[in-house]
């Protein structure tokens, strides 16, 4: 289906997540579903948590024991296909790569969207905005935990 729609099904998404208890700490979720010649996630990881190998077409594999959720790979991925997820106090926290203007401001409420671009019923809160030199901004948001597997990006300011 993803080959037709561009959107990963919830089953595919879940296959990239660790067990929920692991998400008490932030972990990178690598949504790379098709083999393409690309390896910046592997080379950018300071903790050797991501493995692709000499055939850069291989799909990245992540070792959640080594991943610290630093988000460096989320910024490095040319496909904007990596986010960092964490669960805390009944909320899901995400660090997402964001390349649109205007940038959100900490404390704002924004609509949230799933992988099909549908707006979610609940909004998200902008927790942090980290501008970077390479112009992919890393935005941290929180949303109610039931949206853990649904949240994909922020939509517009509410």
């Amino acid at each position: 289906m993803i080959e037709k729609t561009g959107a990963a099904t919830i089953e595919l998404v879940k296959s990239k997540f660790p067990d929920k208890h692991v998400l008490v700490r932030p972990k990178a979720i690598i949504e790379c579903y098709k083999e393409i010649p690309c390896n910046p996630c592997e080379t950018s990881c300071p903790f050797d948590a991501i493995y692709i190998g000499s055939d850069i077409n291989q799909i990245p594999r992540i070792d959640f024991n080594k991943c610290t959720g630093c988000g460096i790979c989320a910024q490095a991925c040319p496909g904007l296909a990596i986010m960092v997820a964490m669960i805390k106090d009944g909320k899901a926290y995400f660090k997402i790569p964001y390349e649109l203007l205007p940038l959100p401001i900490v404390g704002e409420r924004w609509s949230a969207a799933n992988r099909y671009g549908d707006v979610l019923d609940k909004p998200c809160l902008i927790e942090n905005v980290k501008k970077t030199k390479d112009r992919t901004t890393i935005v941290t948001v929180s949303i109610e935990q039931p949206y853990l597997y649904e949240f994909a990006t922020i939509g517009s300011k509410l």
Partner: protein
Amino acid sequence: MIEKELVIIGGGPAGLSAAKVASEAGMKVALFERSFSLGGQLIKQTHKFFGSESQYARVRGIEIADILINETRKHDVEIFLNATVVGLYKDNIITVYQDEKYFKVKAKAIIIATGASEKFLAFENNDLPGIYGAGAVQTLMNIHGVLPGKEVVMVGSGNIGLIVSYQLIQAGVKVKALVEAAGHIGGYLVHASKLRRLGVDIITNTTVKRAVGNGKLERIVTVKLDDKWQEIEGSEEVIECDALCISVGLSPLHQLLSMGNANMLYVNELGGLVPIKTCDYETSIPHVYACGDVTGIEEASSAMVEGKIAGLMAAKHLGFIHPNYDSLEAELNQQLCVLRQGPCGEKIRCGLKKVGEIYD
């Protein structure tokens, strides 16, 4: 007649890479570019590139252009801008058109890195103002800062269609839909997912039937296609839009090579007419080499590697051996192998096999 050691035609990723390596090998290089700036299509690419570090992965295309252009400055490559090469003749002579004048240049070796041009789509009213090729949209938007319209429909889901759609959204344009005639998305899924989560409808098995508008585009009529690419009657739908962007593939700019009577072959997988070449990238014309999209449509990452190989070999055959020749040759060929190894490289591997290059 002006005489040059190595002439490179085309200042895109392939030509610039060839210039760098040939200069390092000790050749005096003259590079002819028909545009007002070097960099080719790279200067319109605002996204981060794929590949590995040796092909500048995660660097934005426009920044890769800067890196490559700086290399040519460092090596004193002689650059001719706004200089269109209009003829390739016997004995490695070319005609250049610059500043409303023609002049001839004779070279010891020539590297042809002319790149590709866009394919277009035949449908009713496809000449209405508001209908663009994807390259034109990028030129308008990313070079001149002009929006092509307010509401755009993209045709074609290859990497260019996906990337330009994303750039349109970044520029504040509404992308109403992306239609694709095939049954699946052509380009990288990560690009498609980026669009989808921003709300772009990706509609497969669908093409444009006609454009409608009085003096300018106002709406398009799409039609569904069956598995044999035949229109399904009664499946027409109307989409209101003031711009339509066509991104249905590229074909090699082979004209100089054809004019020079190089041995050519039509290879569908490579995008059209391409030169038969040796493993040293030499065409059937002695000391005329070809690299990049003119030898088959691929990503810029491969074009850069091919350019380096062409530069290395053109120099070698005239007795200029690059100081790192052995390691470079092995490493560059290995890079190409890796880039073409996966499922995305299947088409190019199949095409290259037909012109005698094997990647199995």
